[in-house]
């Protein structure tokens, strides 16, 4: 293979959907937490903990489903720790998020020691007889693992939840003004804790998709910044669920494209291709934030602000 000619567009598009799933899952979870007014910078840590816990559980039980469940629980547990520190003990959100990431990276490396080079049980594809065999759409849309569909369902679910349910309305209200929400008698901390834990579970699932489906293998630090890209994605999406999906595909596309270019032997050093997702993230962030009034209008007004009810 040489040059771009060797790249199969349908394979790329299908790979894009798979590649975008980890950051999609993590980002939609973080979106919910941020809409409730909490900025959790520990997505990377929750993701990688989910990756290793899910991997270990799947290997131990031989069941991918149990692995995914464990991954969600692992991410949620770390998120609960964040909630305890930030909501219960009023710790600084930025610093606690960083601590979460550092702790998650260390703990995951520790748990993962015995799993390097191990093969996980195969993740079942959700083949739909008939549909999967369709010429183009079959490979593109109907030949993926369950998490890919779960990710799409989650986006739709979160969108509907925020837009149409009372609980979603309360969550948005808490993220908009915790003082007003408190005055109306809503449990600000309870709502936020629930949102943060949900975000952690999603991030854990995203990590597990990496280690169990996409790679599938466990390597130390395998998320390689995906959690941070997910955080950027939420900003990129202006805190709207469907735009998260769009952004995830964009970043998934770049990841797949640079891998394909590497494989195709394009005359650019591998390292420069490999840095492209991070550079693109920066560029996208700049473009989004350049329009300041719009960025400010969409951000939850209480995002990152600590809440302490007096009296």
């Amino acid at each position, binding site marked *: 293979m040489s040059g771009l000619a060797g790249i199969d567009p349908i394979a790329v598009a299908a790979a894009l959907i798979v590649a975008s799933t980890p950051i999609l899952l993590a980002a939609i979870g973080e979106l919910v937490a941020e809409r409730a007014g909490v900025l959790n910078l520990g997505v990377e840590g929750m993701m990688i903990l989910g990756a290793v816990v899910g991997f270990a559980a799947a290997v131990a039980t031989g069941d991918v489903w149990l692995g995914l469940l464990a991954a969600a629980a692992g991410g949620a547990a770390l998120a609960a720790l964040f909630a305890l520190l930030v909501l219960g003990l009023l710790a600084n959100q930025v610093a606690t998020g960083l601590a979460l990431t550092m702790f998650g990276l260390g703990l995951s490396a520790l748990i993962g020691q015995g799993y390097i080079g191990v093969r996980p049980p195969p993740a079942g594809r959700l083949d739909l007889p008939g549909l999967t065999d369709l010429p183009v759409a079959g490979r593109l849309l109907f030949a993926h693992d369950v998490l890919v569909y779960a990710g799409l369902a989650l986006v739709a679910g979160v969108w509907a939840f925020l837009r149409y349910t009372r609980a979603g309305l309360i969550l*948005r*209200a808490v993220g*908009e003004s915790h003082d*007003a929400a408190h*005055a*109306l008698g809503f449990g600000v901390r309870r709502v936020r804790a629930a949102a943060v834990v949900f975000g952690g579970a999603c991030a854990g699932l995203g990590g597990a998709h990496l280690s169990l489906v996409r790679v599938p293998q466990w390597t130390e630090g395998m998320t390689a910044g995906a959690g941070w890209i997910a955080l950027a994605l939420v900003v990129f999406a202006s805190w709207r669920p469907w735009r998260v999906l769009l952004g995830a595909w964009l970043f998934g596309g770049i990841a797949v494209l640079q891998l394909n270019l590497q494989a195709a032997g394009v005359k650019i050093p591998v390292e420069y291709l490999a840095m492209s997702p991070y550079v693109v993230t920066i560029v996208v962030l700049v473009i989004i934030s350049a329009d300041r*009034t719009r960025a400010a*209008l969409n951000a939850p*007004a209480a995002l990152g602000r600590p809440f302490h009810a007096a*009296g």
Partner: protein
Amino acid sequence: MTAGPPLLEVEGITKAYPGVVANAGVSFAIRHGAVHALLGENGAGKSTLVKIIYGLVRPDAGRMRLAGAPYAPASPAAARAAGVAMVFQHFSLFEALTVAENVALGMERPPPMRRLTARIRAVSGAYGLPLDPDRPVADLSAGERQRVEIVRCLLQEPRLLIMDEPTSVLTPQEVEILFGTLRRIAAEGTSILYISHKLEEIILLCESATILRGGKVVAGCDPRQRAARELAEMMVGRLIAPAARAAAPGGAPVLEVAGLSLPPAGPHGRALREVGLTVAAGEILGIGGVAGNGQDELLAALSGERRAAAAAVRLDGRPIGALGPAARRAAGLCAAPEERLGHAAAPDMTLTENALLTGAVRERLVRRGMIDWRAARAFAARVVAAFDVRTPGTEVPARALSGGNLQKFVIGREILQRPRALVVNQPTWGVDAAAAATIRQALIDLAAGGAAVVVISQDLDELLELAHRFAALNEGRLSAARPVEGLTLREIGLMLGGAHGMQAARPEAGRLAHDPA
């Protein structure tokens, strides 16, 4: 009004916070369908009492009965379920959400959105409070926001409606409409607990009153039978001499603003449009206006936090519009913004550090980049001494001071720098009467000494007491200034733009206001 058991009975309510007893054995009763006033100074314990009735705070001792049954709400939801609704002083609204969403949040079991939207239209129309349910609250004026709160309460068909300082954000015309609405609600059998420190309103609206001072009930009376002066004495406990204003001077212009326009700073901000004003040496210019009409923006544009064209702001003829805050202070223009904690002062910094915050330039507290802490401490101590700031010392954080003491410190810090011109926003907001009197007198003295003073305030009484000339801010525009002598309340109302958005209101509202129910 019907005789019989009262709707709400409050007996011996006591609530203490570290360092203060907010309520001490408070007892009173509200009859069915009555408009009952809770009168008291800032800090008299009104807010705590209301929070207890609304279930936000639990009392340390005492009990309440609602319509004869024991009433001890554990949460606002429980209070609402029992038929108690509340309109907050600082609106409990969510800017980014629509009117209908905001209303839904305040209800226990809201109907589906479409039905709720229709009901909001119906109820708001019936009470003369027109509202568009689909508009985001961020787009509404202060008066319209209050309507959202009231409609939210009315939809729950409450037995008791609590109004916490509802007129502080309204123009006189809007106040008349509000009173019309409240009388009508009361006539339909809903009792109203009306919290205020404005005596005229209470005399006009309420048929019974409970007066709080220092957390205790000092009197209960029928306010319609009392003179405002009598009520004031009961509320304050002593007579406070009104500040003595010097005669209008004829000095040379010191502060001149011309054609000052600025775009809004944020998505919910207000633009300044072609603002122009002139203040002479020795003169106090009062700027009134309903909250959110550009007061913060005007202060920022004068303090230098927001810059404009150089010629837009002149001090003694020198263009300073393009300078930042430090350079403007150096030139002689000082300012004190409305928000004490977080804007005028850093809450977690000591008084010394807060003295340095604006005093660095004029008091020479920084030399070649290095801070002279001893001089800063001395300056802070001078402010504390000159303005009778009650504090254990200069090394305590600003947030440890009471509102009145911190405000005296903030205003004193600017006045002791001997500015050529001083701009203050809401100088006595939330401040006890004694501190307010001190601050007003200090502003008058500063002007008498030859400085130009601009007082931005939402308290019309304060402006009429202090200012030589009066101008009004409305939607970022400043009216032409007029001499205060001979200005009537009605004229001021028109200057404030009292008509905005109120045309659709009921025509008879104005008549009702002068016609006790």
